[in-house]
C-alpha cells in the first residue's frame, strides 16, 4: 500500500507538470487551443507514443531496445518500395519482417544472456546500413497515384486525424493485451524477477521474443505511418525516434529496472513532450530550445524517480536497521 502511494507521487508530479504546461501554454500562446493544433498534437502524441509503447515493452521485461529508429527506417522504406505493387502488401510484409527480426533478437538475448542494450546498438548500426542499401540513389517515395493515402491520414475529424486514431487504437490494444493476456502478465513477472518467473514456469524466451517483436513492430508501424504521411522515406530518416521513444517512456514514469509501466505512462510522457514541441513551434522559440527542454525534462524525471526510489529504499532500510538496532540499544543502555 505504501509502495503504491509512493509510486503515485511520481505520477502526481507528472500530472502536475502536464496541467501546468496546458494552462501556461494555452494562456500565453495564441492559437494553442485551436482544433488544428489539438489534432496535430494528438497525432504526434500517437506517433511517438507508438514508438514509446514499443520501447516500454522492452523496459517492462527489464531490457532496452535502442534499434527502433533503424527498424522504423527499414520498415518504412520496405513498405513504400512495395507500394507500387500493393501498399497493403508492403505494409504487411514490413510489419511481419520487423516482428520476425524482433523475435530473433529476443531469442538471442534469452539464449546467450547478451546485454540487450549493446546488441540493439549493433542492430541500430546494421539496420541503418540496410536502410541506406535499400535507398542507394534517392529516398523511397510513395507513388503519385497513392497520394490520397497521405491526405486521408491527416484529414481532420474534429480534434482527431485518421493517423492519430490508428496510433491511439494500436496503443490501446497493446495496453489491453498487457493487462488481460497471460503473455502480458508474464512480461511483468519476468521484468520484476526473471529467476523467480522462470522458476514458476514462465518461458523467458517467449517473453523476450514477444517484447522485442512488439517493440520492432510498433517502431516499424510508426515509421510506416510517418513515411505515408510525408510521402517519402530516406535511408537516414527517423533518427529522432530513439530519443523521442526513450524520453516519452521515462518521462511518463516507466522505471528502467523493469517490471512496471503501462501505456498510460507512455501517453502521459508523450503528451508532455509534444506540448513542449508544439509550444516551440508556435511560440517562435529557436528550435534548439526544444532539445534543451526535452533533454532537461528527461534528466529531471530521472532525478525525481531516483529521489523517490531512494526515499523508498532508505525508508525500508531505516525500519530494518531500527528493528536490528533495538535490542542492542537496549543492552547498551543497560
Amino acid at each position, binding site marked *: 500500500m505504501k509502495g503504491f502511494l509512493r509510486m503515485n507521487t511520481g505520477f502526481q508530479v507528472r500530472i502536475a507538470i502536464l496541467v501546468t504546461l496546458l494552462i501556461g501554454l494555452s494562456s500565453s500562446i495564441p492559437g494553442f487551443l485551436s482544433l488544428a493544433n489539438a489534432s496535430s498534437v494528438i497525432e504526434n502524441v500517437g506517433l511517438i507514443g507508438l514508438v514509446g509503447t514499443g520501447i516500454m515493452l522492452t523496459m517492462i521485461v527489464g531490457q*532496452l531496445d*535502442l534499434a527502433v529508429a533503424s527498424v522504423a527506417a527499414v520498415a518504412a522504406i520496405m513498405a513504400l518500395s512495395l507500394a507500387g505493387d500493393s501498399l497493403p502488401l508492403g505494409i504487411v510484409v514490413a510489419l511481419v519482417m520487423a516482428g520476425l527480426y524482433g523475435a530473433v533478437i529476443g531469442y*538471442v538475448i534469452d539464449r*546467450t*544472456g*547478451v*546485454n540487450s*542494450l*549493446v*546488441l540493439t*546498438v*549493433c*542492430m*541500430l*548500426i*546494421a*539496420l*541503418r*546500413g*540496410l*536502410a*541506406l*542499401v*535499400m*535507398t*542507394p540513389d534517392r529516398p523511397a517515395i510513395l507513388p503519385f497515384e497513392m497520394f490520397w493515402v497521405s491526405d486521408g491520414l491527416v484529414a481532420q475529424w474534429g480534434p482527431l486525424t485518421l493517423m492519430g486514431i490508428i496510433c491511439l487504437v494500436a496503443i490501446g490494444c497493446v495496453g489491453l493485451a498487457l493487462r488481460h493476456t497471460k503473455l502480458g502478465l508474464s512480461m511483468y513477472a519476468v521484468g520484476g524477477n526473471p529467476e523467480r518467473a522462470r522458476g514458476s514456469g514462465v518461458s523467458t524466451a517467449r517473453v523476450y521474443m514477444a517484447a522485442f517483436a512488439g517493440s520492432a513492430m510498433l517502431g516499424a508501424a510508426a515509421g510506416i505511418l510517418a513515411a505515408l504521411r510525408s510521402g517519402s522515406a530516406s*535511408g537516414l530518416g527517423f533518427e529522432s525516434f530513439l*530519443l523521442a521513444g*526513450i*524520453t516519452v517512456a*521515462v518521462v511518463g514514469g516507466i522505471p*528502467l529496472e523493469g517490471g512496471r509501466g503501462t501505456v498510460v505512462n507512455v501517453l502521459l510522457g508523450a503528451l508532455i513532450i509534444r506540448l513542449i514541441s508544439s509550444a516551440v513551434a508556435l511560440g517562435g522559440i*529557436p528550435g*534548439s*530550445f*526544444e*532539445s*534543451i*527542454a*526535452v*533533454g*532537461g525534462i*528527461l*534528466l529531471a524525471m*530521472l*532525478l525525481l524517480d*531516483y529521489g523517490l526510489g*531512494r526515499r523508498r529504499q532508505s525508508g525500508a532500510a531505516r525500519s530494518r536497521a531500527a528493528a536490528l538496532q533495538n535490542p542492542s540499544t537496549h543492552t547498551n543502555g543497560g
Partner: protein
Amino acid sequence: MGDWRLTDPAAYEPAPANAVTRERKWLKDLGPFVPIVALGGIAALTVDGFGTTPNLIAIIQASAITGIAAIGTAAITISGKFVSLSIEQQAVTSAYVFAALYTAGAPVLVAVLAAFLVAALLGLVQGYLVSRGLNPIVTTLAFGSVLFGTVVLLADNRTITLSPNPIAELGGGTTFGVPNQAIIFVILLAAGSFLLARTKFGRQLVLTGANPEAAKIIGIPTRRIIMIAFVVAALAAAVVGILVVGQVSQAKSDMFRGLTIDVVAAVLVGGIAIQGGEGQLWRAGYGAIVLTMLGNIMLLVGIDAGTRELLKGLLAGAVLISMTVLKARNR
C-alpha cells in the same frame, strides 16, 4: 588434508591443466590480432591500393578520431557503466568553446585549456549523476540533448571559422610523414594503457567495474572512480573536438555526426567486455583501427556506404555475442 597430495601422483594432474590454461591465455592475448593481421595480409595481396604507405597512413589517421574518443569511453565501459551516448555532443561543445574563445581573441593555450576545463566539468556532472546510481545510457542521452541544444543556441547555429588557424599543423599536419593525429592517438593509447595497467587508479577502475560491492567494501572510492572515468571520456572527446577544428578550421554543429555510434562499435569490436571490470584501453583503439581498415578495404573493393555500415553492425554484434557465449562457457 593437503599433505597426501604432495606424494600422490594425482597431485600432478592439475599441472597439465595449468599448462593448457597458460597456453590458452597466450592464445587469448594474441587472439584478437589474428583476424586483423590475416585481413591486412589478404587485403595487401589482393586489393589494389591497400598495401601502399599513403593508404595505411590514411587508415591510421582516419581511425585516430574515433580511436581517441574510444580510448576515453572505454574507461567508462571498464568502470561498469556501459558507454556514454553524449560523446558527439561533448566533442562539439569542446570544438565550439575552443573556436569561440580563439576568435574572440583569447590566446591559443587559454582557448585549449578552457575547452578542456569545460569538458571536464561536463564529464564530472554526468559522472556524478551516474555514480549516484542513475542509468548511464539514459542520463548521457538526456545530457547530450541538453548540451547540444545549449551549444547551438549560444552559437546561434552558426559555423565558426578560424582564420588564421593556429592549430592547423596539429590537426592536419604530419611529422616525418606521419599524421599528427595518428601520433597523438598512439601516445594517448600508450598513456591510457599505462594508466590502466600500472597505476592504482587503473586497478581501482577495473575492480569497480568487476565488482562494485566488493570494491566499496575494501575501501575503493567507487563513486569517485566512476566520476574520473567520465571526466577521462570527456577529455578524450575534447581532444577529438580540438583536433578536428585544427583539421577543418571550423566548428560546426554537425561536425561529429555518427561519432558516438562509431565509438560504441569500436569499443565492442575491440572486445572490451561491456559488463565492465575487464579489458584494456588499447582494445578500444584497436577496435577503431579494425573498423576503419575494414571500411577502407570495402571502399577499395567498391562496396557502398550502406553495406559497409551493415557489415560493421553485424561484425560488432558477432563479436559481442561470441564474447558473451565464450564467457558463459568459461564460467
